[in-house]
């Protein structure tokens, strides 16, 4: 296919103004701050969800790791809301851009690893060699573990980008196929439409799951290092 398909992934500009800033900042409008004990329904729902997620995710950490709670909760809220907003028609999803996901993944991973190296140097270095490896294999295994460590941020970013981009592309393609098939053979168009509905449900799930996975992995890297 050609540029028609990828047109929804280019950076949005209008009259030369970068709209991308406004689009990235838009989800913050949907999470109002509260200054009361008992709030309106929107804020109460968000607070309940946030408590649920933070209890589930931060319970595995010690005191030092739990100082990251604000960062991780903001992360999951941001990625989740951005992905879900991208499912609206005609909207632009910032998380489809690899640059943005690398910008999220590399600092968080580096922060966790450097914290580990500074505070528990011996334990962090010990991660490079799993327990009980036979002696001749040691040099190779150290190299492999180093590579696997350095690939973690790249994997985080590429996983998020690829999942969201692939989902959007599939929706475009199957939607286009449904439209094209409607004049040729209505039954096939109906089947394709059902596939489109199922795909959209999957995309909603993927949007939230990817946010969860990203944050979970960052918290795991943190757990290893605090």
């Amino acid at each position, binding site marked *: *296919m*050609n540029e*028609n*398909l990828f*047109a*929804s992934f280019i950076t*949005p500009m*209008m009259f030369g103004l970068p*709209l991308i800033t406004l689009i990235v900042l*838009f989800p913050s*409008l*949907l999470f*109002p701050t509260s200054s009361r004990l008992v709030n*309106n*329904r*929107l804020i109460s729902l968000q607070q309940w969800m946030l408590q649920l997620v933070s209890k589930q995710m931060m319970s595995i950490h010690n005191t030092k790791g739990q100082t990251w709670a604000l960062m991780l909760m903001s992360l999951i809220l941001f990625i989740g809301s951005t992905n879900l*907003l991208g499912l*609206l*028609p*005609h*909207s*632009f999803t910032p998380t489809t851009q690899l640059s943005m996901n690398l910008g999220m993944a590399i600092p968080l991973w580096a922060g966790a690893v450097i914290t580990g190296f500074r505070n528990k140097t011996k334990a962090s270095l010990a991660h490079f060699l799993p327990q009980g490896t036979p002696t001749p294999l040691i040099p190779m295994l150290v190299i492999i573990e180093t590579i696997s460590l350095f690939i973690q941020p790249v994997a985080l970013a590429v996983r998020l980008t690829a999942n969201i981009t692939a989902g959007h592309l599939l929706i475009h393609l199957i939607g*286009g196929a449904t439209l*094209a098939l409607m*004049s040729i053979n209505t039954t096939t168009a109906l089947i394709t439409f059902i596939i489109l509905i199922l795909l959209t449900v999957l995309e909603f799930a993927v949007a939230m799951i990817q946010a969860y996975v990203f944050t979970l992995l960052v918290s795991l890297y943190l757990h290893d290092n605090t």
Partner: protein
Amino acid sequence: MNVPLKEKKLLEVKLGELPSWILMRDFTPSGIAGAFQRGYYRYYNKYVNVKKGSIAGLSMVLAAYVFLNYCRSYKELSESLLDCFASGGVSPDRVGLVHRLI
């Protein structure tokens, strides 16, 4: 009760006075920021920050977001529609497929 023009609200301004009223508005950055803030709180306190807020408060914001994105991509969409009608009711990247099917 003679209210000076500067302090009149928009609906109280007569049509003849409209240009001078617009020119008297505060166009400094802090003035514009204040206008956005007032607008945000007007919407928030009317539709969201109420005892029994419904889904409409959030849906109106999302609908406006969809509409603004549509306006942003109108040009591209209308050009691709033109290409579609030029190649006989099929999008231009599917023309090859249809030719092969025939």
